[in-house]
């Protein structure tokens, strides 16, 4: 077991990725993600890996595509506007069934927005991480420890299902320091018989490609890929439940806003309101099962997000009209205050909306 250390979320992501066997990092600087790339630039060479600052986000993601096609564990990281630039390449990776990890340390948007924390890329991450029919698996850590834990797992999950995986963090989680126990370095990685890695004519050559000009071929591939997505939905839904069993008012919040929601739940319990919190850890696949379960006894749901109301759509889909689902949010880098959330809980408990 490693020693507990104090680290920034961005640094924990970088160190844990290397311990997961990541040996290639391609990126382009942007606030509030920069410490991740800086840490890689200082340390990746010590484990025999490659850190490369590309000339743009677009070239960085295409380098990720290339390294992944060759069978490497590879990642890139950026913040919201930079992720938009990478979206074409992520679609290509999905289309070629290439694994890889993409970190988004979100900031306020749209456009250049702000450099302060935000969760306004939820829709992008879970709905349309590029053009075409595809999903990426999305993890939403809410502590520095989870930053380390989920990026460590993300590389395995990416390889297992041959899909890009995103860590959806935000400026608060990236910049803050908390105690963290880092995972042990991985000593063995999965075989990749599909990799285009040079074989001296010992086997049929492998191809990494997302171009299919025959309609029937592409149709079949998309159906096959969506069968895999169904497996992912069954196996990979993750959520953390806090005081949900007897809750009348169930809050749903992820990442940094889940921390605020939890404080509000504690404050509500202290004044006798039965509040609870469902914290989705995977945003895709969305942890629908536990929300459906909670809708059997909850009086109302409240989504707390640092955006204008994005995850609230998914919660409404899960609840399917059986219970009211309200929303509270702040944007642009404004962090919701626990007392504001408590006021919403009180109002819902009295039958308000």
């Amino acid at each position, binding site marked *: 077991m490693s020693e507990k250390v104090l680290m920034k979320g961005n640094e924990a992501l970088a160190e844990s990725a290397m311990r997961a066997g990541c040996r290639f990092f391609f990126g382009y600087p942007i606030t509030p993600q920069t410490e991740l790339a800086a840490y890689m630039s200082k340390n990746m060479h010590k484990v025999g890996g490659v850190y490369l600052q590309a000339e743009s986000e677009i070239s960085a993601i295409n380098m990720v595509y290339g390294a992944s096609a060759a069978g490497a564990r590879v990642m890139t990281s950026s913040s919201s506007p930079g992720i938009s630039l990478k979206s074409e390449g992520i679609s290509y990776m999905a289309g070629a069934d290439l694994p890889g990890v993409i970190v988004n340390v979100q900031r306020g948007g749209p456009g250049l927005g702000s*450099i302060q924390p935000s969760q306004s890329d939820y829709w992008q991450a879970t709905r349309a991480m590029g053009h075409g029919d595809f999903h990426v698996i999305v993890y939403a850590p809410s502590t520095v420890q989870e930053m380390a834990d989920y990026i460590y797992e993300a590389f395995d999950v990416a390889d297992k299902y041959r899909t890009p995986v995103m860590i959806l963090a935000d400026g608060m989680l990236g910049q*803050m320091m908390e105690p963290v126990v880092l995972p042990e370095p991985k000593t063995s990685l999965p075989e990749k018989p599909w990799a285009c890695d040079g074989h001296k004519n010992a086997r049929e050559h492998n191809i990494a490609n997302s171009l299919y000009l025959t309609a029937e071929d592409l149709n079949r591939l998309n159906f096959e890929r969506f069968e895999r997505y169904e497996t992912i939905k069954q196996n990979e839904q993750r959520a953390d439940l806090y005081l949900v069993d007897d809750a009348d008012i169930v809050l749903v919040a992820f990442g940094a806003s889940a921390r*605020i929601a939890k404080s509000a739940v504690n404050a509500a319990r202290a004044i006798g309101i039965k509040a609870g919190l469902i914290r989705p850890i995977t945003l895709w696949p969305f942890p629908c099962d536990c929300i459906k379960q909670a809708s059997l006894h909850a009086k109302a749901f409240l989504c707390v997000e640092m955006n204008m109301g994005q995850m609230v759509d998914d919660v409404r889909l899960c609840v399917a009209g059986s219970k009211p689902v309200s929303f509270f949010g702040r944007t642009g880098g404004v962090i919701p205050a626990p007392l504001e959330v408590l006021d919403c809980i009180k109002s819902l408990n009295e039958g308000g909306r």
Partner: protein
Amino acid sequence: MSEFHEELRIVLAGFGGQGLLFAGKVLAYTGLIDDREVSWLPSYGPEMRGGTANCNVSLSDEAIGSPLVLDPNVLIAMNQPSLEKFEPMCVPGALLLVDSSMVPVKVGRTDVEVCYVPATKLAEDAGLKGLANIVLVGKLFAMKGFCSWDTLEAAIKKCVPAKKVEMVQKNLDALMLGVSA
């Protein structure tokens, strides 16, 4: 489990370059060493370039919700704009540590505990220029006793980079200066 149970929600604020982030890191490390719950959050906006800098540190025995401190019970203010910005946010009974060699005004509120320490002048007079931040940490230690001296010393040793090991003793001297101020 630590013997120190008071939850501290600390805002450290001043000009960029006064070492507020470093002082916050020392406080955070005391919590790490004592196996308490800790969070450290810097302001990282464009205002950091030559302007005000602040950082939020929480030390607690309970899991920390938002690392953003909206209701500090300790404020360390090293310039006037910081005092003006954060004084209204402090909870009644909060401790306000003010570097009186940098802040020419007095605290207006009467429902908080105020301690004026001419930290910048004390540090300079003692040949410890640039360590007013640690003088104030020493004063906070003397007033709140949020950890043991051994823990505080270990935190300093953790935070001073290996390349500047000669700074460890100066930081310890600055702490002592604050304790006796």
